[in-house]
């Protein structure tokens, strides 16, 4: 596990010469941050997507995706225009165009969302984004800014497509972390404070995203994030 997770191995920041002295000191310190050892986080199993149902033909699948795209754009139009009858002359072509574009430009990935896990995720995520914003505001306003920035790798185990993109975006809204790059099999995360246990925080988020996309083995749903990953 330690070999997969090389903490602060590459501080590819602004060139240090451009920084004020105190910041330069900090950004150099980030090469060798103090912090807990991360060899202990246990991996929890993530299962792959369920296989496609063989009874549904390719044409039916495409039609279903198109219907979804049209439903979403219709909903957006109705919300934006308050469904006035005179808006439909523009609305029907606009809805059709947006729906077809959305259908044509997004790749056909299959994923499903577990409704209960989604609710739980929304509540947790709201709280975390408040914590994240307060944390960054506190650091910005403090007289001596409390920063120990640097990069770390987190190996990705979520399947390609929506779960990975969702995971990367959620990382950026969590306290102290920002997804900088999806590279090969891992996400490169910038952390404001490498003294925190970034790896365990990311493992907790990964578990929640896996539950959201219904990718955990069934028996695991009732539990909490694996081990010390909470």
């Amino acid at each position, binding site marked *: 596990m330690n070999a997969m997770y090389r903490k602060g191995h590459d501080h*590819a*920041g*602004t*060139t240090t010469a451009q*920084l*004020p002295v105190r*910041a*330069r000191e*900090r*950004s150099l310190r980030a090469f060798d941050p103090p912090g807990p050892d991360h060899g202990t986080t246990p991996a929890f199993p993530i299962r792959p997507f369920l296989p496609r149902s063989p009874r549904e033909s390719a044409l039916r699948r495409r039609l279903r995706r198109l219907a979804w795209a049209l439903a979403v754009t219709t909903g*957006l139009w109705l*919300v*934006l225009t*308050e469904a006035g009858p005179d808006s439909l002359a523009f609305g029907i072509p606009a809805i059709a165009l947006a729906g077809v574009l959305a259908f044509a430009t997004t790749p056909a990935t299959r994923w499903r969302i577990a409704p209960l896990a989604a609710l739980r995720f929304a509540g947790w995520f709201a709280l975390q*984004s*408040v914590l*994240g*914003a*307060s*944390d*960054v*505001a506190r*650091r*910005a*306003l403090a007289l001596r*800014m409390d*920063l120990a*920035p640097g990069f770390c790798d987190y190996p990705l185990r979520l399947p390609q497509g929506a779960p990975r993109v969702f995971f*990367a*975006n959620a990382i*950026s*809204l969590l*306290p*102290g972390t*920002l*997804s*900088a*790059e999806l590279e090969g099999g891992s996400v*490169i995360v*910038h952390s*404001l404070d490498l003294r925190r246990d970034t790896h365990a925080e990311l493992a907790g988020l990964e578990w929640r995203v896996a539950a959201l996309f219904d990718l955990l083995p069934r028996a695991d749903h009732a539990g909490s994030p694996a081990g010390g990953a909470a």
Partner: protein
Amino acid sequence: MILIDSLAALAILAGAGFFMAGTIGLLRFPDTFCRLHALTKADGLGLALICLGAALLAGSAGEIVRLVLIWLFVVLSAATCAHLVARHARADAAAARNTAVTKETRP
């Protein structure tokens, strides 16, 4: 409806406070990556609070749904933009390091 009005004013003020903190972070933080943290997180919550305040004052359900949509799209695009800017800055820094190395090793 003094209570709702003052709650809304409080939320909007707090939201403006987070925008201010985000901007101060943008100016004070030492490098591109730390600055992106300030932009995505503080401004996201700032907008959420302002939308909450506006939703408390909203006259119809449609307005509330529109406010939620505004917040959702802004936060999504902020996360995506931060990711793209960070990726670009990393590539830039790597390129700068390479040229610095070749200059030093030149006889």
